[in-house]
């Protein structure tokens, strides 16, 4: 563990005093020329970057209503200033959402508004200098695009949209983040973020079959690249290899087994994640989504079910239809895509799963609403279903469920601190600081109710929490997926089912 000091938890979330420039030195690694070029961006910062950036800025303003409106209408009321976990964790004044937005807005005003052209000083407008570009790179890579600020803004101004646009503009002048660009390149090449080749995936699936056989005595299948199945399952690729992610994959397999539904994963569309969103690149997002559609068509499946992944659920739920829809070759009785939690809960409600809750009796569970599920998508087909479906599922699988404080859950949930393309070692300090409000809320229920399981439905949340909670003396073992709970509670062969 890196040597990074953290405050002692006491369960209280405090709004800090501002510290100008506290994180000005955070600088996530820049992407290499080869990585940039593979995505169609210039290899390195182009000579006339300022001109190119303004050109791209204009183009985004003309094609993105949100940016167009948000640049103009912020009244600097201050309602958002205390809402960002990175401000709470780092104290850096530039991490107040409106201050982050203003890094872009000051350039907007200088080049695109009369006031900013005539009286830059009076309206807070500034030339797009190298210093400003550095600020952009620093602070637009300190936004996890969690949208919490947007909830409390009188106009719904969403800093996530602004940081996506800023990263898009930066990529187009040759200044990208290594972490995100490298991952997008890997998806293009191998089909998943981790760059895992097909044989390795196959190995994992076979290993899981043996593992589950050994543990339960039942032959649960973990199939890959089988054509003509009912379901194509698209998990986040972390589910194949990382702990605790893989336990959820085990859970999905058991659910399908009990449902008696044939399913498969694809070695090429082996990744639900879509980092095109983090860099605000519509075209990258579309390309990444397209390969899933291609595989679904090629395999001749009837429906697509997706695994526990937060930002990708946003892309799937909210964007897929626009990006690569319509999905008219799939069975229209099921939503595209369907979330594994929706599928499992529905199965439970129809009596298709026998669950032994007592298998989870040693667990006292709380649920962390992942940002992109809570504030950027829904579940179950009804307003607010994204809060109820996972909770109903947890309550169906275990006896001890506790909520964290009201202002830290559901629509007001605090980010894990690692979303939005920031889950990289070179931003470790930021990630540790950013988890603070969530860690406080978790600590409070650990103290009051003995909570020992933080249930999640997001691969990034799982990785981030496992890594950073230990800095606050919370063991990484508390972290787990909802389908880990499901998998542990399922009584295999226990339910009569209809397909």
């Amino acid at each position, binding site marked *: 563990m890196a040597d990074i000091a953290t405050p002692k938890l006491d369960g209280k979330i405090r709004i800090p005093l*501002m510290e100008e420039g506290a994180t000005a030195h955070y600088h996530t690694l820049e992407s290499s020329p080869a990585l940039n070029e593979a*995505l*169609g961006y210039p290899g390195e910062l182009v000579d006339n970057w300022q001109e190119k950036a303004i050109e791209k800025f204009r183009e985004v*303003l*003309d*094609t*993105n*209503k*949100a940016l*167009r*409106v948000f640049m*103009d*209408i*912020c*009244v*600097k*009321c*201050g*309602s958002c*200033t205390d*809402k960002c976990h990175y401000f709470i964790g780092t104290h850096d*004044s530039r991490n*107040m959402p409106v201050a982050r937005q203003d890094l872009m807005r000051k350039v907007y005003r200088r080049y695109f508004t009369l*006031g900013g052209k005539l009286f830059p*000083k*009076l*309206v*807070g407008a500034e030339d797009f200098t190298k210093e400003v570009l550095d600020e952009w790179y620093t602070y637009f890579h300190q936004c996890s695009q969690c*949208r919490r600020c947007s*909830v*409390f*803004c*009188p*106009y*719904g101004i*969403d800093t996530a949209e602004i940081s996506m646009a800023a990263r898009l503009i930066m990529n187009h002048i040759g200044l990208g983040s290594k972490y995100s660009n490298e991952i997008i390149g890997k998806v293009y090449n191998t089909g998943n973020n981790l760059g895992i080749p097909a044989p390795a995936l196959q190995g994992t699936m076979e290993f899981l079959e043996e593992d589950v056989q050994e543990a339960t005595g039942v032959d649960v299948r973990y199939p890959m690249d089988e054509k003509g199945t009912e379901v194509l399952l698209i998990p986040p690729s972390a589910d194949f290899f990382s702990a605790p992610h893989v336990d959820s994959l085990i859970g999905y397999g058991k659910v399908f087994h009990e449902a008696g539904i044939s399913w498969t994963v694809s070695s090429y569309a082996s990744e639900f994640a879509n980092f095109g969103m983090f860099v605000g690149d*519509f*075209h*990258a997002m*579309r*390309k990444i989504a397209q390969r899933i559609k291609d595989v679904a068509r090629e395999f001749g499946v009837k429906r697509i079910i997706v695994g526990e992944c937060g930002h990708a659920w946003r892309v799937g739920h*909210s*964007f897929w*239809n*626009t*990006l690569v*829809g*319509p999905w*008219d070759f799939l069975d*229209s009785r099921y939503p*595209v895509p369907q979330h594994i939690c929706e599928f499992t809960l529905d199965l439970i409600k129809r009596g298709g799963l026998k669950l032994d809750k007592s298998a989870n009796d040693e667990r006292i569970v709380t649920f962390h609403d992942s940002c992109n599920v*809570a*504030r*950027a*998508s*829904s579940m179950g*087909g*009804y*307003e607010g279903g*994204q809060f109820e479906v996972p909770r109903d599922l947890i309550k169906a699988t275990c006896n001890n469920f506790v909520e964290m404080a009201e202002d830290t859950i559901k629509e007001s949930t605090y980010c894990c601190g690692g979303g939005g393309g920031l889950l990289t070692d070179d931003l470790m300090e930021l990630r540790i600081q950013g988890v603070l409000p969530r860690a406080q809320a978790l600590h409070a229920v650990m103290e009051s109710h003995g909570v020992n399981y933080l249930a999640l439905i997001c691969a990034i949340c799982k990785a981030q929490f496992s890594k950073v909670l230990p800095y606050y003396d919370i063991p990484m073992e508390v972290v787990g997926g909802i389908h880990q709970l499901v998998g542990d509670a399922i009584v295999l062969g226990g339910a009569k089912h209809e397909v």
Partner: protein
Amino acid sequence: MTSLSMVYIILYYIAFAILLGGFLFKIWRFAKTPAPLVIVGTPGAKSGIGTAARVASDALLFRSLFRGNRWIWVGAYCFHFGLLFLIFRHLRYFVWPLPMWYSQVEQLVGVTGGIMVVIGIVWLLGRRFFHARTRYISAFSDYFVLFLLLAIAASGLLIKFRVRTDIIAVKTFMLGLARLHPQPVPADPWFLLHFSLVLALLVYFPFSKLMHAGGIFFSPTRNQIDWTRSTERRHVSPFENTKSA
């Protein structure tokens, strides 16, 4: 007609044209800029009516601001609804005749509005000056517009309670402007001050953050409908037929 009248009449029409043209241009631009994706903040309504209710609750009740910060909400609500009352109070300078009940409530509404506006502005200015985070995000223009509004409100109240101007002359002048049949401007310095400040506000409006007045209805995070998984409808992006790299 005096040259003073000529100047004010011309200024009025110029200011009015800038306000109207600028405001409509900006609104048109908000409206025509496409939204690449559905980015509605969830939980969001699944129907048009629900979405309209959501936008209305923000426009009329400042619901999100209320959730975000009660202190700002109090000041903002006081100010904006005071402003609404004042606009009502000034209707008689634009429309005539007005119904009977108008003259019965106009005084009360006007005075209440004036007081609410002044209290609201002072409140919000106080936050800008003394609340550290708000001060940090404020530029000169953020103070300027509050002072401008304060000056307008104060000069208006002054005319009403202290210096008294010739209301009939003001009405004749204003209605003349509205009917495109200009009349001489009342040469009362307090009225001219009040009137000039309002003209400045009109001109400033479309170039400033005051555009939130129309912009609030165009924010995709609030006015979009959460029906993205529907098989019947599909949100189409401006890049629908472009090839991805």
